[in-house]
């Protein structure tokens, strides 16, 4: 299930937005035993100067946001991307009725930043 987070200002700063993936809605609930779904989240928002200086941004991203603020036509703003992610594990039945536990790295966005 997803819904676009209400944008709280004309240029919302880059941050993690809620996104819950429901296995039932994608029809996998019959063979995925657990979890029923998980909070994957996503990144949305702007990396404009000077806000970008307050978000977990690389120095380069701060420089790029500064360049964008003084010459927007020449330099695009940095991108709002995941910078801290968490793993999840999924328990499911495979084609041979085996019960399988699979571990996936980098599946949940914990934190966003400008890059």
């Amino acid at each position, binding site marked *: 299930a997803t819904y676009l987070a209400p944008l709280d200002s004309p240029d919302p700063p880059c941050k993690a937005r809620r996104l819950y993936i429901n296995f039932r809605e994608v029809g996998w609930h019959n063979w995925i035993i657990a979890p029923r779904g998980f909070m994957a989240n996503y990144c949305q928002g702007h990396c404009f100067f000077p806000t970008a200086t307050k978000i977990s941004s690389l120095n380069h991203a701060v420089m790029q946001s500064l360049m964008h603020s003084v010459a927007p036509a020449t330099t695009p703003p940095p991108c709002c991307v995941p910078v801290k992610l968490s793993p999840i594990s999924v328990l499911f039945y495979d*084609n041979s009725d085996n*019960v399988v536990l*699979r571990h996936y790295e980098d599946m949940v966005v914990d934190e966003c930043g400008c890059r």
Partner: protein
Amino acid sequence: GTLSPQASALLQTLGLSPPPGPPPTRPVPSVMWRLFRRGPEAAETQGSESAGPEMPQEPQPLPCHVEELGVPGNIVRHVLDGGASAPPEPALGSLCLEKPLFFNLSFLDPKEQLTLVRLELNFGAPGNLAPAQDWELSLSYAQGRLWGQPLYWHHREVLLRRTVPTLHDPLYFDMLALGRLGNSTFPQNLSLVLEMLPGRDSDLPRGLCTKLGHSLEASLLVVTLDPQLCQPTSRKRR
């Protein structure tokens, strides 16, 4: 029903493939529930719920490591004995039980490295009835056996012999430590024969041995590591 191209692509990326038939009804083994609950989310959840800023965070479980089993891995499979429904063979001589065990390992992907293959033998309630005496178990390969041919027709390579004091608790055997399985790169299946010899008291009631044969639940816990899923995104040196 039919999958959308997007769903198919996502499943393929995650290495998931929905079972072709109706949803399986097989119960989930407690060991798999335990491993799932001890997975990364559990650690994360526990950390956030119980730990305020002043509480020390729980150490994150090692990525690509199955902590409870103490081996590297990111895929754990619980495989049931494919021959469970086959009746035990007539046990010859003083053998109490002679049982073929068959595990289908065709799911193994060449990319995956075997890090644990643990055989579990669980005799259930009849196991509690069996006298607590030294039972001698032996496991051997039955490769190359044609289905339906009596076991004793086949030369068997004995993998291990072990004396166990009781059949009351599940018995575990580390198959990788036994050698050849670990060396063969991609075994498609694992065919074994379990023989059981009663200890001191050899005049066991025949019915008990038959019950043991029927109640035996044999399963494999197979842990593999797909190294490609564990590569941290290495940053190129500038």
